[in-house]
């Protein structure tokens, strides 16, 4: 047997070389697929953030118009008593209209009067009323007051409604644009920080709708989750990790918890409706019901995080404690648990952040109520931050699209803040054994 001839060798090495080229190309292709996958995901993330921010950042400012209001006692305090209760029923709308018409040189009976009225928010007289009721000495004086502009004017100033659009297809008419430009030139119209976004509840007018009720409702719910889920979750984890013997009951508990972590959130909503509302009789649409539902949802997260944290504490700690005469309970509560506290805390914050953004179960237990007054206790009707965002997203007006995005920015800010806190805690206190 002789080996391959030289010509055969060349042919073989060519085949091999071609094969290697092909394989290298395949290698490069495969690597590119991976890079493309990552890029697609990141591009998607960036588009999402860009959409939300470009839509929502303008909602943090709001257009106001300054008017010189003569607070005529005949209109708001005919008896001259300065009684706050009486002042509440004054005719503030009339005062504002008078000032507005004289500022814009409009005759109250002309067709332009309707357009002039639409320069200001429908409810701007409540703003004035609250101001006067809060300070009755103002009656009889002339006050220079910044009143919220109508949502459409606001959108024009922010550039969402364009001057170039033909008059008949535009929500803001030519005359109003002229007025707005004139007011802006005179310094009587400006954009300021939008405090209504944080100080008002639900409203059918976008310029007056705010997140206050939603934020307070979400705050109550987070508090309830914290008060219930953390002690219960940590206790359950301690039992399962440190005390539970390997038997079928504990196996079932184990499978159960892993499964609960993957049950659709809406199912928890149905459970809350059936158990907390229909059986126990807690009031619907309240943070207490929402908080309890979110507690049940957050429990698996906290249990799983705590178990991992307990598992990470080396046996030497337990043995040392037992060696100097501690009972098992003492070794766990005095030594193991404090050592795993940072990891437990991290898991808890991540669980809370998840609960904060949860929408579907809260819709089911009725936290979509139209609530204007901030809930004083967890037993009062309320809304929740993500549900408020959902409700705003169902409205068509441009003003609400902006508000929706602003609400999402607030929600994301909370969530990213909480996650950052978790990362910082983890990197600062994490202990490697």
């Amino acid at each position: 047997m002789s080996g391959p001839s030289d010509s055969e060798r060349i042919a073989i090495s060519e085949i091999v070389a071609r094969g290697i080229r092909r394989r290298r190309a395949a290698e490069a292709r495969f690597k590119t697929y991976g890079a493309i996958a990552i890029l697609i995901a990141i591009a998607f993330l960036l588009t999402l953030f860009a959409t939300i921010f470009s839509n929502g950042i303008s909602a943090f400012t709001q257009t106001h118009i300054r008017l010189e209001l003569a607070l005529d006692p005949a209109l708001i305090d005919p008896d001259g008593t300065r009684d706050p209760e009486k002042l509440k029923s004054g005719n503030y709308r009339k005062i504002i209209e008078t000032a507005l018409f004289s500022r814009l040189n409009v005759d109250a009976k002309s067709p332009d009067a309707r357009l002039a009225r639409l320069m200001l928010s429908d409810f701007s007289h409540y703003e004035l009323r609250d101001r006067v009721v809060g300070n009755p000495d103002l009656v009889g004086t002339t006050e220079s007051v910044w009143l919220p502009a109508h949502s459409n004017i606001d959108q024009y100033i922010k550039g969402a409604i364009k001057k170039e659009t033909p008059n008949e297809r535009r929500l803001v008419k030519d005359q109003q644009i002229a007025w707005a430009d004139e007011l802006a030139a005179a310094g009587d119209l400006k954009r300021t920080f939008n405090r209504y976004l944080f100080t008002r509840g639900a409203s059918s007018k976008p310029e007056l709708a705010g997140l206050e009720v939603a934020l307070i409702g979400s705050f109550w719910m987070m508090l309830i989750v914290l008060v219930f889920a953390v002690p219960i979750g940590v206790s359950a984890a301690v039992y399962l990790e440190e005390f539970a013997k390997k038997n079928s009951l504990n196996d079932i508990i184990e499978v159960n918890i892993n499964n609960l972590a993957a049950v659709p959130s809406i199912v928890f909503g149905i459970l809350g409706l059936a158990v907390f509302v229909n059986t126990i009789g807690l009031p619907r649409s309240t943070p207490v019901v929402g908080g309890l539902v979110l507690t049940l949802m957050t429990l698996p997260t906290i249990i799983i995080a705590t178990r991992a944290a307990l598992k990470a504490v080396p046996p030497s700690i337990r043995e040392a404690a037992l060696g100097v005469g501690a009972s098992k309970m003492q070794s766990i509560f005095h030594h193991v648990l404090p050592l795993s506290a940072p990891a437990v805390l991290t898991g808890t914050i991540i669980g809370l952040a998840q609960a904060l953004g949860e929408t579907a179960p809260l819709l089911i237990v009725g936290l979509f109520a139209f609530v204007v007054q901030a809930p004083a206790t967890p037993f009062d009707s309320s809304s929740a931050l993500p549900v408020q965002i959902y409700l705003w997203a169902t409205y068509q007006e441009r003003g609400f699209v902006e508000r929706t995005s602003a609400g999402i920015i607030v929600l994301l800010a909370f969530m990213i803040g909480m996650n950052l806190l978790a990362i910082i805690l983890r990197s600062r206190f994490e202990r490697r054994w």
Partner: protein
Amino acid sequence: MLGLIGIVLVLSVLAFVAGSLRALTLARAGTGRMLHSRASYHGGFLAIMTAVPALFVLAFWAFGQPMVVEGQVDRLLPPEVQSASALERSVIMGQIKRVSQNLDALSDEEKEAIRSGEKPPVAVLLPKGIPVSGVLGAYTIDAAETYAKLTALAEFWRLAVVLGVAILCFFIGYTRLKPEFRARNHVERAILVFLIVCSTIAILTTVGIVLSMLSESIDFFSRIPPASFFFGTVWDPRFGGVTRAGAEGQFGLIPLLWGTLYISLIAMLVAVPIGLNAAIFLSEYASKRVRFFAKPLLELLAGIPTIVYGFFAIVTVGPVVQAFGAWLLPLFGLEAPTSASSVLTAGIVMGMMIIPFVSSLSDDIINAVPQSLRDGSYGLGATQSETIKRVILPAALPGIVGAILLAVSRAIGETMIVVMAAGVAATISPNPFESMTTITVKIVSQLTGDTEFTSPQTLVAFALGLTLFAVTLVLNVIALQIVRHYREQYE
């Protein structure tokens, strides 16, 4: 109620102090015996003795009191009310309770007017801001007065019994405090019981989920035959005509199931290739720096609330998909899509949401493949991609299948994205640009409409929820088992 709990807790704190001091005194008394347990355990024992039995009594009382009081009041009601349906009686009892809490708002003449039948109760009570309806009769005032009287009586006795139990148990415990008393063992046993109770809450939650949905679902299936629910192809629940005969509506599950599965399929078509490739790239190719930035960004996708994805779907993705459909469909002689909400919109966005889910699970699983398999493959001259494709992926396949199943279960149960972006029309169609609906969308719409819990229109939500729970439960259990088996295989 809350006040009473507060009193018991304060007593329990006092008992803790008393127990600790007592133990210290015993130790100092010079009996020559050391304390078995530290003083704080004696205190803890007394605190538990004081609070726990009293709180148990309170819990039973809170449960039993309305039953006893309502039973007594029920006897006063006239026969025509006695013979009414259970639901009507519970409505009447609820309103009597409300009246009993607001009796002070009524003058004697008003009470007399109602009692004599001169004025119907609703005419007097509603203007006073007491929400009642026309079902109440002249018996209202007597019943409400009895209700208020019995409740006041019961509350007095509740206070007496609960405090009595607390104090009695405190003294029983107090007499047991001796230097050799094993207080720590008792306290630790109580703590262990508490830990066990906490860990069974997970089971109770599952049981609660099943029971709550089962009873309402049985109620539903007693009106609508199961076959027409599970195999029905028409979804038309007909809101409004709840009590009218023949207005039952049709509750076919098939269109909802079709929409759910179709959207999940599209979501998986987006998420699996991207997620798997991303996981392979990150775990096998990416440099440390790339991984440092890319991994948290991917995980951020998982942390974004689904409501945000839903909004993004209708504002940004929907119009693009619609425009694409308007260009594509006429080429095949089909009509252009009429709305931005479609199966494709919801599916794409849901897929994006699931990417990090697939990628981080697959990442774990790929990392669990032993290094020896890689080394063996490299030793035979395979390139990195050949190693991944021919060795690592086949070895990791069961784990990856488990991860994908978990992702499917998540897609099926996802709610907000489909509520906002999939539409509400229950249609069965292969056209991905058409808007369809899912099980979760219908649960939300049936439960957020009216709140009457007796109509099939509402009850169907529980049947849908049960179906959803069953499907995801099976998927989760199978997936978790596969992943667990897979991990054990390489350990």
